[in-house]
């Protein structure tokens, strides 16, 4: 009954995160019920808002998949932010530099983003494989290198007309937004990225559960000594895993910077990178779980602006709630014990 146990743990973590949010709202003198009402309404109230929630969830799904993939192989990559940046930069560069019909542009841009992200993920993977450099530190370093790369590259090559701090707008033929989706969602940021994200979720599920590659990666994640014993090339698999993880995060960057948004801002490390860790954890590192978690976090992110406008609650509460959820998801053994206690009692009664 591992599925149910995971669900219970996830729900418990979510509940406690929301409870923490409620306490904070109380602490600053606001009404939690009102706060949450606006928070959730902000994400779901009308078609446009739902569209925005889905658009936000798109990027989170991809970073969540990226993290889940790495975690399954036993690797703690937290480099999704940097990989998003280079993925977005690659897509933006193509979008601003190349002029082709949309049907040709989009696949090329996505490919570029995937490749850039994969390369950015492969570097820590290689360092881990060859030199056993711990991926936590190396991915963080690469995040900051990506940050500064964008910081200098955008004003130098892709500058917006009037502002130093952002890139030029990508033209319509280079954006993942399409007229019919925008119309359908009544003007939201919803874009083709959502199909990319869902397709990736399915792909990841297939790879992890049905393929020999998935078999190898999970074996390495559970017990690298046994994997080595069995003839699996552990370093190569680790590098490959981080490369794939980076590719997914690079795609996430594309969905954000040339899908949701219309340009790149410099001086910002995209928070979806860290949020991806939360999404993966809450989703128990499974593709389906990731999609559901991403939706939930999408609601939180979409709604916090509305909540802030209607009450005086700062929007950072959304991030706080997410962070608390991840804390409780990490300490899930507490819930496991509770779950085991409950089920043991049930068994004894039977």
């Amino acid at each position, binding site marked *: 009954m591992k599925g149910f146990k995971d669900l219970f743990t996830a729900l418990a973590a979510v509940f406690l995160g929301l409870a923490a949010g409620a306490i904070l709202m109380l602490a600053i003198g606001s009404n939690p019920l009102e706060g949450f009402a606006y928070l959730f309404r902000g994400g779901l109230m009308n078609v446009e808002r739902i569209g925005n929630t889905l658009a936000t969830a798109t990027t989170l799904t991809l970073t969540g998949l990226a993290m889940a993939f790495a975690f399954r192989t036993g690797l703690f990559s937290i480099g999704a932010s940097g990989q998003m940046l280079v993925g977005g930069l690659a897509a933006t560069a193509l979008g601003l530099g190349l002029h082709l019909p949309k049907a040709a542009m989009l696949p090329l841009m996505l490919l570029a983003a995937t490749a850039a992200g994969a390369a950015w993920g492969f570097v820590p993977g290689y360092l881990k494989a060859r030199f056993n450099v711990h991926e936590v*530190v190396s991915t*963080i370093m690469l995040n900051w290198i990506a940050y500064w790369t964008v910081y200098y590259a955008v004003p130098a090559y892709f500058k917006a007309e009037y502002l130093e701090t952002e890139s030029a707008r990508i033209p319509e033929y280079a954006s993942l937004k399409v007229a019919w989706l925008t119309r359908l969602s009544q003007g939201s940021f919803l874009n083709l990225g959502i199909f990319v994200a869902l397709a990736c979720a399915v792909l990841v599920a297939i790879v992890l559960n049905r393929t020999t590659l998935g078999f190898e990666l999970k074996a390495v994640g559970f017990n690298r000594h046994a994997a080595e014993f069995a003839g699996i090339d552990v370093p190569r698999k680790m590098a490959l895993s981080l490369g794939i993880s980076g590719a997914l995060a690079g795609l996430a960057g594309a969905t954000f910077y040339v899908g949701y948004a219309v340009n790149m801002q410099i001086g910002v490390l995209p928070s979806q990178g860290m949020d991806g860790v939360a999404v993966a954890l809450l989703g128990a590192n499974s593709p389906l779980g990731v999609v559901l978690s991403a939706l939930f976090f999408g609601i939180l992110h979409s709604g916090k602006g509305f909540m802030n406008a209607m009450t005086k609650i700062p929007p950072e509460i959304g*991030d706080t709630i997410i962070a608390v959820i991840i*804390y409780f998801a*990490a300490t899930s053994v507490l819930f496991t014990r509770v779950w085991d206690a409950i089920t043991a009692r049930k068994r004894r009664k039977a």
Partner: protein
Amino acid sequence: MWDMVARIFPYAVAYSMPLLAASLGGLFSERSGVVNIGLEGLMVVGNFVCAVTISKLQPSLGQGAIWIGLAAAALSGLAFSLLHAVASINLSANQVISGTAINMVSTALTVFLARTITGSGNVHITLGFVPFDVPVLSGIPILGPLLFTKTYVTTWLLLAILLLSWFVLYKTPFGLRLRACGEHPQTADAAGVNVYRIRYAGVLISGALAGLAGGTILVTFSGEFNGTVAGLGFLALAALIFGKWKPLGILGATFFFGFAATLANVSQVVPLLARIPGIVLKAFPYVVTLLALVAFSKTTQGPRAAGEIYDAGKR
């Protein structure tokens, strides 16, 4: 050339000190067996609490407010690290994830609170430590201008803490037991040492030192809380590895990173450096860290039991 070095040095030292404090914190934690990657978040917490304390107490206490601010920074780091301690030690959580959670909670929570206080999310203070020249010693040729001019009192405080750490770790029973818990907790347990308690101590010390580091940043060169410490907490971890988990090694490593980061920061005012593209200088500390980790990979061996969940029930 020498002139440039002499001018940069005091800045480099000042920049290295918070790194040193955080790294020392990481040392105590990891040597006791608990990996703490939440140093970054703990520094942010210390930074924030220090800023708020100083701005609140400044009107009434003047210069004294700074010291209270630093103390509050250390205490808040300690308190916050309890979250990591409980999760990793009692609840057998994965230590890396727990540390990441700490980072996320700290950054979100502090900006949240800052917004309720100032509305913008930044907390600016107008009071800080003033750099001074050490009497007599700053006159020594060569070493004087390098080490004893334009120093901050926190630098000396932290160096004293470094020496104290070395002493505690290698000369006292507590230090012996702490190191045993990080290498082979089963042995410590069988010897009657309370592994849980020691690990709590290790994590709490790391929280206090990281919080102090965050406060030091504020009162020496930053002057403002803005929600981040730009990856210094992670640089501190890299310094820990680079310094081979030894206090003196960490001193060397943090100073090295501090110097690299300072080069980037002062590039505008130094003609020689101003010609190098900005990105190279800014990315330099991070690239150097990566190279250092690669170079030292063969010989690094952290505390053997660090990062592993210890379950007393399993003998």
